């Protein structure tokens, strides 16, 4: 095994937590010496909950015929965007299930309408959604990304990465795109000049080696393209899903200590990705504050609306002022940013 991988494995399993935290904090200071912590004001809009992937860790998806299945009403969507802008938002995050009744013409028309009505960054469609659109339309990934970009898509969220290990994906989300396809979508987007984030959901059935393989895959692609703005790890939320019950009964859920370890390792390993986000949505505000000393330099989004994690039983209610207050009380200076991590406002 490569020395870097070996060292990473040691960090995940052996390095004392506070030593690891200190190393990650030192890396963060080098990249962000000004003691600023950024956040974005945006809204997460889940346009449909119908999904053919039916991942075992998901508490959000519904079958097409389910009485709770929905596709967002266009008027409602536009209203949500206009509220977001009124609240000082600069971005909407549009994500949803893989809904067989929607096709690329629907998405293109939607993007065009939004862009016609509003000046706002559209951060949308994770790789599983884009790959699904491509296969339904008989287009290549590249052609699909071009179509979406031309219609108004600005940047792509890093969701659906879960763990980039096909062994793990077979176990927890066998219908979802594999590692290579996820990376291909991101690579094509980067080559077309789009910026994306990358995520990792851990705390299911993965081993430390799987986590490291994930970091390595992201690091390699970033080395080629430089297109990732940020990396965002979070823990699997076991509430309400099939996998949740199994995990709780067997090994138990990933704890705060596991989160801080993976977060710190991410900061140390991904030396070519500038920003690491703390996930207050899954960890709570206090642990997210601690995360600012374990490698994170960004507090993520104000999450005006979030449905997927809420379906898993996690609901932390916060406002923009709560986020600003939470950052200030750690001693860092809060700053609102845009999608590309340009600072818009200091507080």
């Amino acid at each position, binding site marked *: 095994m490569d020395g870097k991988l070996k060292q990473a494995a040691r960090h995940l399993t052996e390095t004392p*937590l*506070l*030593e690891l*935290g*200190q190393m990650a*904090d030192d890396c963060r200071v080098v990249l962000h010496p000004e*003691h600023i912590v950024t956040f974005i004001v945006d809204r997460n809009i889940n346009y449909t909950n119908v999904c053919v992937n039916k991942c075992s860790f998901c508490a959000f998806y519904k079958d097409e015929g389910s009485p709770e299945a929905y596709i967002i009403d266009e008027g409602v969507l536009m209203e949500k965007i206009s509220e977001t802008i009124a609240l000082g938002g600069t971005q909407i995050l549009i994500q949803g299930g893989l809904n067989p009744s929607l096709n690329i013409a629907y998405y293109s028309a939607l993007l065009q309408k939004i862009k016609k009505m509003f000046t706002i960054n559209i951060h949308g469609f994770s790789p599983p959604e884009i790959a699904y659109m491509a296969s339904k339309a008989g287009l290549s990934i590249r052609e699909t990304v071009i179509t979406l970009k031309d219609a108004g898509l600005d940047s792509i969220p890093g969701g659906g990465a879960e763990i980039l290990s096909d062994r793990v994906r077979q176990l927890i989300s066998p219908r979802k795109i594999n590692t290579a396809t996820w990376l291909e979508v991101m690579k094509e987007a980067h080559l077309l000049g789009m910026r994306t984030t990358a995520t990792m959901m851990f705390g299911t059935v993965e081993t430390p080696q799987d986590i490291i393989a994930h970091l390595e895959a992201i690091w390699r692609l970033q080395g080629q393209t430089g297109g990732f703005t940020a990396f965002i790890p979070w823990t699997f939320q076991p509430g309400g899903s099939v996998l949740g019950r199994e995990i709780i009964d067997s090994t*138990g*859920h990933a*704890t*705060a*200590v*596991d*989160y*801080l370890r993976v977060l710190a390792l991410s900061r140390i390993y991904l030396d070519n990705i500038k920003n690491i986000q703390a996930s207050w949505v899954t*960890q*709570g*505000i*206090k*642990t*997210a*504050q*601690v995360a*600012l*000393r374990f490698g994170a330099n960004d507090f993520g989004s104000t999450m005006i609306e979030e449905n997927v994690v809420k379906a898993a039983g996690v609901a932390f209610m916060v406002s923009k002022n709560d986020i600003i*207050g*939470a950052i200030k*009380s*750690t*001693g860092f200076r809060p700053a609102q940013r845009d999608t590309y991590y340009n600072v818009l406002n200091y507080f």
Partner: protein
Amino acid sequence: MLEWHVSLRVFDKIYAAERLDSDDALELFHSDDLFGIGRAASSAAETRHDKKVYYTRNRHINPTNLCVNRCKFCAFSRSVGQDGAYAMTIDEILHTLAASASPFNELHIVGGLHPDWPFSYYLELISKIKLHHPHVQIKAFTAVEIDHFTKLSGLGLQGTLSKLKAHGLDMLPGGGAEIFNEGVRARLCPEKIHASRWLEIHEAAHNLGIKSNATMLYGHIETYEDRVEHLMALRQLQDSTGGFQAFIPLSYQPVDAVETTRYPSGIDDLKTIAISRLVLDNFPHIKAYWIMLGQKICQIALFFGATDIDGTVIEEKIAHSAGASSAPALTTAEMIHLITRAHKEAVQRNATYEEVQ
């Protein structure tokens, strides 16, 4: 504002095992060296308890929320006739305990200062509990309640405590300490007993062989100087009696009545636990109370000097009234999971820190 990256001469003292003074403690509070402070506190904890972390199977009984005091940080208290006011009879309490589905070996009883209950209510309460649950240890009545009882009993402090002990009281909890500084106390909880009285009551209890805990409510309107003063007062009393078992820093949960909306950050919570471990060199344990901190910070605190995470805490009402977002109770399996995932050894204890399993 934190001072970023100051080098701490105080670490020389810590690693030479010298006692820290007020200036040292203040320097630690003002420092941003989270990891240095955490490592020192962790090493202080391991010297005492190796990798052991203690938990208990306990439940809370809050007999009434009627209270003649009106502390500004309290969202639990009610007046007679007010919506949501309640007062349990002894039979109701016994019934609740008998119906308890999960076993417990420690009972934590604290409540409001009821305007009408006589001293005999409390004596009868603990003696009847002891009768029905002879193996359960009773940790009951904060110093604020004990002070109230002395007025009811007319027996003086020592007489009141002796009587409670004879009826089955095993230990005093650490509540009601808040912040000892009188200026802050006058703004936060003017009706509550003075700091000197709180300390006097714990001293009297220790002298009668009744062990106790101590708390500090922090992160509201107090300064770091106030926190240090509080820790020093506790250390001084502990030097003379040795009766304290655990110190429990209580992270403030914002309520409307206090003129601040700030609350401690997770980083402040961890530092406060660590600095407490370093300053209170004569206290056996620092407790990370998950009800106030949430279970995530509580678990991280095991790397910052905490060696106790309290217990299952079935039916806690007071912190949850103030909006504590923690779960209503933790299972034993969940507590063991948190401790073992932190690579520590989970040890079940009773109220007086004897190992149960």
